[in-house]
């Protein structure tokens, strides 16, 4: 897979690789972190007035920083692979705009719902839901377009729509399993039901996408079904199946355990959902590497000048651990069940 790479001991060789790794981690962090708060947005309309407040409170202190990972991911695409940024975002022009409108609507609805007049609250709640849905679907659609290398035919577009639905189901699962951790009582019981529905949808989606992907891209087909690869790669789908089973089983048993006032396994559905996302991401990354635009543009062809990359890299390896450190601190400050948000 490294045959297109220049000498990896040179800066022009290893720096693009390092930045691809950082960008991958940033996007994965974004998908999981903003994924759970987008997911809570998708589910918002299912709760009653009081439950809505609690659902919002469960993501209140986090959503802002979660979205910053998107800015980092896109920022690295922009600064480390400037050529690809133009090609990719130019090709995704409309879905990007729709995603941005969705993210904007939900971001502001979050604030307006409690600050605007009471009679407008329902409207802002709906806006929060609709914005979350729009952003989730747009992100899935964009992923689908990237996988097919922006091919302009009906099947590719249908494939992208399929991934859009899968993405929304995945976010709903992340959101509902997050609520299982952060809430109690009726809302928690509802969240278990929502999670069970989402996981079935997601499993169907992942299965369909896995079957369809090799057919929409010849290169991905060769990568996964070449004989030597088949042996090395089978653990990825196998582990995905196992993780799904763990999550489903844990969800099925949870109500009974809660009846017995046992809360020690509340985190298992969320953790296994995160594992599913990581495995799917890994498989996807393997399929695409080393291309940023499928079959057209590799990370080395798209990279910025080595001296500029080095200047950012030095900053990134110093600052990123600090960011991760204080992010963990912030999550620890707000650990435990969500309580009403209050400024004082």
């Amino acid at each position, binding site marked *: 897979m490294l045959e297109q790479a220049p000498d990896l001991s040179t800066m022009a060789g290893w720096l693009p690789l390092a930045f691809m790794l950082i960008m991958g981690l940033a996007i994965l962090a974004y998908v999981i972190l903003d994924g759970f708060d987008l997911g809570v947005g998708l589910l918002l309309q299912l709760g009653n007035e009081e439950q809505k407040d609690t659902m919002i409170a469960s993501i209140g202190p*986090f959503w802002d920083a979660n979205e910053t990972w998107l800015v980092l991911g896109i*920022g690295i695409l922009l600064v480390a692979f400037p050529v690809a940024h133009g090609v990719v975002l130019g090709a995704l022009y409309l879905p990007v705009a729709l995603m941005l409108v969705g993210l904007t609507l939900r971001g502001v609805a979050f604030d307006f719902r409690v*600050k*605007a007049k*009471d009679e407008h609250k329902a409207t802002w709640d709906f806006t929060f839901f609709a914005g979350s849905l729009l952003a989730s679907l747009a992100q899935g659609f964009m992923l689908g377009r990237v996988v097919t290398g922006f091919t302009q035919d009906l099947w590719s577009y249908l494939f992208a729509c399929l991934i859009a639905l899968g993405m929304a189901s995945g976010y709903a699962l992340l959101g509902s399993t997050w609520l299982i951790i952060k809430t109690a009582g009726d809302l928690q019981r509802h969240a278990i039901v929502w999670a069970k529905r989402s996981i079935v949808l997601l499993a169907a989606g992942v299965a369909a996408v896995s079957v369809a992907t090799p057919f929409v891209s010849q290169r991905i087909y060769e990568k996964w079904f070449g004989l030597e690869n088949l042996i090395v790669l089978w653990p990825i789908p196998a582990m995905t199946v196992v993780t799904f089973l763990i999550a489903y089983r844990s969800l099925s048993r949870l109500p009974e355990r809660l009846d017995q006032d046992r809360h020690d396994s509340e985190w298992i559905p969320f953790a296994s959902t995160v594992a599913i996302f990581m495995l799917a991401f890994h498989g996807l990354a393997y399929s695409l590497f080393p291309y940023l635009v499928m079959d057209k543009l590799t990370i080395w062809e798209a990279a910025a*000048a080595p001296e*500029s990359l080095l200047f950012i890299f030095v900053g990134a390896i110093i600052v990123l651990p600090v960011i991760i450190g204080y992010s963990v601190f*912030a999550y620890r400050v707000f650990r435990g069940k969500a309580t009403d948000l209050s400024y004082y």
Partner: protein
Amino acid sequence: MSDALLLSRLQFAANISFHILFPMISIALAWVLLFFKLRFNATGDEKWMNAYRFWVKVFALTFALGVVSGITMSFQFGTNWPGFMNTVGNIAGPLLAYEVLTAFFLEATFLGIMLFGFKRVSNRMHTIATVLVAVGTSLSAFWILALVSWMHTPAGFEMRDGVAHATSWMEVIFNPSFGYRMIHTMLASFLTVAFLIMGLSAYRILRNDVTPAVRASLGVGVIMAATLTPVQIFTGDLHGLNTLEHQPAKVAAMEALWETERGAPLVLFGLPDAESQSNRFAVELPGMASLILTHDMQGEVKGINEFPDAHPPVAPVFWSFRVMVGTGVLMLLMSWATAWSLRRKNRVPPLLLKGLVVMTFSGWIGVLSGWYTTEIGRQPFLVTGVLRTADAVTSVPAGNIGLTLALYLLLYAVLITAYVSVVFYLARQAGQAGSKTSEPTAHGPGVLARKAATEGGHA
């Protein structure tokens, strides 16, 4: 101008004009909130905490709008201006990356603790979180203004095969116009906030909601505005002289000077006409432009004619500049009048209060007109002398751009309306909560108490 170019420019202008409104409030408001908090820590006087409690709501709302509109900005470069990153990506990239790494995460993460962590962390930690949010917002301004300034006065780089490569990062960051622009913009932020605070405080006083917190806030706003406005005018003059040195075409457009001349007049009013290269209905003060720009009545000032095919459109720059200066002068008069009557009579007459309410968002007008002056003044270049705007635009079909532009404009119109009305609603609501419950953190039955308890159910 091609359709894609015109529409992309309009879209970028719409996005950045909308975006800049909110950071211009949150940058200075973060420091003001810190000031309220520190005053409370030092004196224990409840009024400072009450002021904090009210303004933190405005801050949270403003911050959210700044974040979401900022995300849009980070996509714009790739979707509409691929040529920008292709040509100067090696310079712009690291500056943007450092903004995300050192500022965005810092402010976004500690914002959660600053807003909702009051009961969960120690008072000391909460103060530290507030400091970090304030530092984050200002750091963000530092990096983005370094990039903007570099686009005006590029330095510390060389061109290889049509692509810019950095030769000195210190020269890139501290390029010739950076210091002036940074100070001018930061002061603009503090003035925007000063008038926002005075406006909303005046609004509450007019509604007979005269609590110690409201009076203290008004006082802080007045002192900020009355002292910083003259400093801002002085700084603006220095910034202008710096522009004359590095971007003379922009200054010629600001002053509507079509021909190079000695003893150039100051055009107070006129309709610049690009066709005839002259001003119609001009009202001029002879020799004054020369005096202001060269400090000599007979000094030579370069005119538009010196920069064929490389000068900005005159009328928009000329008018934006006058709107900015007019806003500044009005700010000076209003803040001094308010300070004078507070000092002399310890109260502000109703007429003046009404004037302050009208000027609640006057900072936005000053900021936008100043921004248009400098940014339109840089045209036809995207990076002065290095990259023309027309050469950086996308090949996305004009129809798509028109569609998204319409979408953004509609969204922004709704959001600005909602923002302004909710800010005033918060001010009215604060008054009601204050008069019906003496305890600001009242718990118990009733709509108001519930509203207070779940305030920000949000964020």
